């Protein structure tokens, strides 16, 4: 424990860390002035004894696909470079209303389309674990002699900037978005907690959409309790988002579970795929055994339609993308080309210049699926498959299972040079395999870091809960987190003078004055 610290001091330490870790490329925009001003106001409140709550004075970061009033919001795309929204996303506003300090906007794949955080116009995000003592020592042991700097690891994505920002201690919590696993995947690769709340629990207003029917604001933190605290602030009906639940949401508090004997943990057999790395598989088994040994009922379950999830997602995602991206025409905001031959020519050039190949490719596919002659064969069928996938989960939960336990990713993070050997589409299909069906069904899921691989890299496991049973899910995740005691990232070599902050990793240990 640091003893007491003022919000301004905390903010300055984080800003200093952001500068030191600039090479990670986690942030697109650092809102230093805004953060310091917010810290100042927070400090005044603490002095008066009128703190707004757990998040008052706490540095946070926000993925650059959430609208932030007065702060550039780019989606890592040329299309929105220079676009400054005139309003705050509801989730951003809720955090600010609680006194949180907005440190900046984090990097991502362009319009969140990707699973590596490698495909944005601001370049790839580097995984902080690439520079950790744990990883470096293992590499020395394994006598790798290549140039270390060229072998940095990807963060996963698309919320890689947010995951890296939390992992590197530049903030306490970050907002990501999760459409097919974009919060949980980088959380697993960066050794942090990544929560995807139930669809409809948290407002999407102000989140620049990828797939409206699957997008959920995600939460990245260094522990489950912190995720619960942030979710407690964000959850609830938003009159600006008609898909949020009407029922009032009670504050989230996570009791520490002492007895898991009444729990039933489901292990979906379809998630045991050939591509799953043996290390992840073994950690998954160990986790199941842990629950069993503590008295929980652990049972194998089947989600028979999960294997169709990726191809089904491809159709639904690209169709919505084609639709959602139609507004980017260069007229009202964002990039506009120089051509003024005709409106049509302007549209075409603007969109060619504004979007990368991945976005354009999805727009083209999506429009193909939505054509009158294809709609029934693709879109409607995909929707039916989606229903079957969602029903699989319903059946499993109706059979008495409380929580499903699965891997989050196939393996630990891979080096960038390795990752880019496959194209974005192939990577997305592979990397979303365990996370994506959850979005189809709108369920809550959380990736919890479990242990380090033989290479010294984090591996996460995923818990999936019943719809709107986010609290129950987090209670189980918290119990599990306590059992596994995941090690803290060792970044001292990089940031020697900031070591004291590293102990100060969780919200509960921060004592602001």
């Amino acid at each position, binding site marked *: 424990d640091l003893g007491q610290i003022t919000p301004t001091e905390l903010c300055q330490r984080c800003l200093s860390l952001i500068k030191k870790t600039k090479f990670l490329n986690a942030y697109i925009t650092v809102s230093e002035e805004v953060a310091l001003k917010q810290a100042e106001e927070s400090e005044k409140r603490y002095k008066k004894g009128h703190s707004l709550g757990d998040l008052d004075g706490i540095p946070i970061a926000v993925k650059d696909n*959430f*609208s932030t009033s007065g702060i550039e*919001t780019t*989606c890592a795309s040329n299309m*929105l470079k220079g*676009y400054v*929204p*005139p*309003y705050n*996303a509801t989730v951003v506003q809720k955090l600010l209303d609680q006194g949180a300090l907005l440190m900046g906007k984090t990097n991502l794949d362009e319009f969140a389309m990707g699973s590596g955080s490698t495909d944005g116009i601001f370049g790839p995000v580097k995984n902080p674990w690439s520079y950790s003592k744990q990883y470096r020592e293992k590499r020395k042991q394994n006598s790798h002699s290549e140039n270390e700097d060229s072998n940095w690891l990807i963060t996963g994505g698309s919320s890689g900037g947010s995951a890296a920002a939390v992992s590197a201690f530049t903030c306490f919590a970050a907002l990501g978005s999760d459409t097919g696993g974009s919060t949980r995947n980088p959380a697993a690769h960066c050794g942090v907690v990544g929560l995807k709340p139930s669809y409809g629990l948290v407002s*999407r*207003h*102000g*989140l*620049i*959409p990828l*797939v*409206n*029917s699957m997008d959920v604001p995600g939460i990245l933190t260094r522990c489950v309790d912190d995720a619960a605290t942030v979710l407690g602030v964000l959850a609830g009906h938003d*009159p*600006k*988002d*008609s*898909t949020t639940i*009407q029922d009032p949401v009670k504050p989230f508090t996570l009791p520490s579970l002492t007895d898991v004997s009444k729990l039933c943990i489901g292990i979906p057999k379809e998630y045991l795929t050939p591509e799953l790395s043996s290390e992840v598989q073994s950690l998954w088994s160990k986790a199941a055994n842990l629950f069993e040994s503590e008295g929980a009922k652990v049972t194998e379950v089947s989600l028979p339609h999960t294997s169709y999830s990726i191809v089904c997602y491809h159709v639904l995602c690209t*169709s*919505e993308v*084609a*639709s959602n*991206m*139609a*507004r*980017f*025409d260069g*007229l*009202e*905001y964002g990039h506009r080309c120089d051509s003024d031959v005709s*409106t*049509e020519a302007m*549209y075409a050039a603007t969109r060619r210049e504004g979007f990368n190949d991945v976005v354009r490719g999805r727009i083209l596919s999506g*429009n193909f699926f*939505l*054509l*009158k002659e294809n*709609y029934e064969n693709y*879109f409607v069928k995909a929707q039916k498959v989606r229903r079957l996938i969602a029903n699989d989960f319903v059946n499993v939960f109706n059979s008495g299972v409380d929580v499903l336990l699965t891997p989050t990713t196939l393996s630990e993070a891979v080096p960038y040079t390795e990752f880019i050997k496959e194209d974005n589409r192939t990577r997305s299909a592979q990397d979303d395999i365990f996370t994506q069906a959850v979005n189809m069904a709108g369920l809550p899921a959380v990736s919890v870091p479990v242990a380090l691989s033989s290479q010294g890299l984090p591996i996460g496991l995923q818990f999936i809960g019943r719809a709107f049973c986010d609290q129950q899910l987090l209670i189980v995740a918290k119990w599990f987190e306590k059992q596994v005691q995941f090690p803290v990232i060792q970044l001292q070599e990089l940031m020697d003078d900031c070591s004291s902050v590293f102990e100060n990793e969780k919200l509960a240990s921060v004592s602001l004055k």
Partner: protein
Amino acid sequence: MAAPMLRWCCPGRRFAFARVGCGSCHRRGPPTGSTSNGKRGQSSVAQQPHITAQKPRKGEPEWAAVVGLEIHAQIASNSKLFSGSQVCFAAPPNSLVSFFDASLPGTLPVLNRRCVEAAVMTGLALDCHINRKSLFDRKHYFYADLPAGYQITQQRLPIAVNGSLAYSVYVGRKPSQMVTRTVRVKQIQLEQDSGKSLHDDLRSQTLIDLNRAGIGLLELVLEPDMSCGEEAATAVRELQLILQALGTSQANMAEGQLRVDANISVHRPGEPLGIRTEVKNLNSARFLAKAIDYEIQRQINELENGGEILNETRSFDFKLGCTVPMRDKEGKQDYRFMPEPNLPPLLLYDSGSLPSGADPQQVINIDQLRERLPELPRVTRQRLVQQYGMLPEHSCVLLNEVGLLEFFQNVIKETRAEPKKVTSWVLNTFLGFLKQQNLAVSESPVTPSALAELLDLLDRKAISAPAAKQVFEELWRNEGKTPAQIVAEKKLELLQDPEALEQLCRSTLEAHPDVVGIPAGRGRHAGAVASGRRPPLLLSPCSPAELPDNGWPGFIRDPPINFVSFQLKSRDAIR
């Protein structure tokens, strides 16, 4: 769907449509032809100058035309369909644009309750089935005044379906020959309006005004149950009255609150329907009728000359009076419909299905809306006929003129005069004066109270009918005098003393020996001759039917006057 077959006129009534072409068959002939229809119809759209009466060639059936309509009615609401922006006509450009209307990324639609209620009420008024569950869809196309690149509409499951709209058309020369026709309402859907593009050809620029973008529209699809411009125009007029009575739309065509596209095809009876064209952007009832009739005749001519009809979109050039192909849409449009993921299904309830404990702000009860429905025009007309004994066509006129019914009812409320007399005065005298000066009812210088007082004087026999006319003219000058004051000033009271009256008669007859010899009832009676010369004194056992022949304005036609009266008339009284 059954093709609306020709409603053949009775044999020998071939030319009946010279007055109104509705429900008739269309004949060959150049669209340039013109018939003089003699009397102007009750409706401004009645004339069909292009249809000439020409006998069909032997053995060949005539052409049947099939007309369907797509109508967009702007919903009268304070705010837009999915955003909180104000709805206001003629506001400064781009002054009523929310972040959602400008399609800023991340904004989401929030359905306006008022717009849903308007759709339900309109659906109920048109005897539609109200879908308890309806869905929203996105319809995609790129256009500069469609900021999101798609319009939110209800393609798959609209809010109301399977209704009907009844309207009356005149089929003969006499106004009393009205028949009721019905057009089926296929569906009513809620959708967003687009913005407006203003093309500056000089600087080759397009300017965009998004004030209109996102205003709620009711799209009403009327099945092709109509067969000519007059029918379509009358149906639209009836719809307009219904929307206005409901308050769901101001339905002013000139302000673009009611926009009509027509689908038109021709075929020979017994054969399949022809290829249709769509005529767009018809912004007045008169142009609607003209455009449809032109297009019908154009198609007939085209086919008669061995040509073919293209499935195309045409616009009506009101200056040239013809339809021309629209250039803009090259190739086939594919709107790539998909469900709107940001709006859950729209659920409506009735008193039976209302979930218990539901927040009244969050649910819409169809039964409650049904109870709140105002009297519909059809019922109002029936009531007027029954209550006041007026002719059906008079009830039509009362409703068709904006504000006239209210004026009429206010007069009725304040006068002891017979309803028939009130009807006559309002429809002939009052409306006539308005028409002559091209004024709206709201601009009338004569208030309902003043007319009521005048009619009371007439009813008490304090003044004669011609004197009442004179008083009315004085009132029209709007010099702030009451009818009683005018009567007193102008000495228009009836003479009640029989002796004085007789004396007056004698002196008059003696003064005009040339008039006295002509027996009454032979076309021109004494009064008429006298009036032509404008003597100060007028003997008038006049019959109203003959009055117009006297050079009186046609609208000043009074109910029969059943007493002989003398009246002093100043020289400028006859207009």
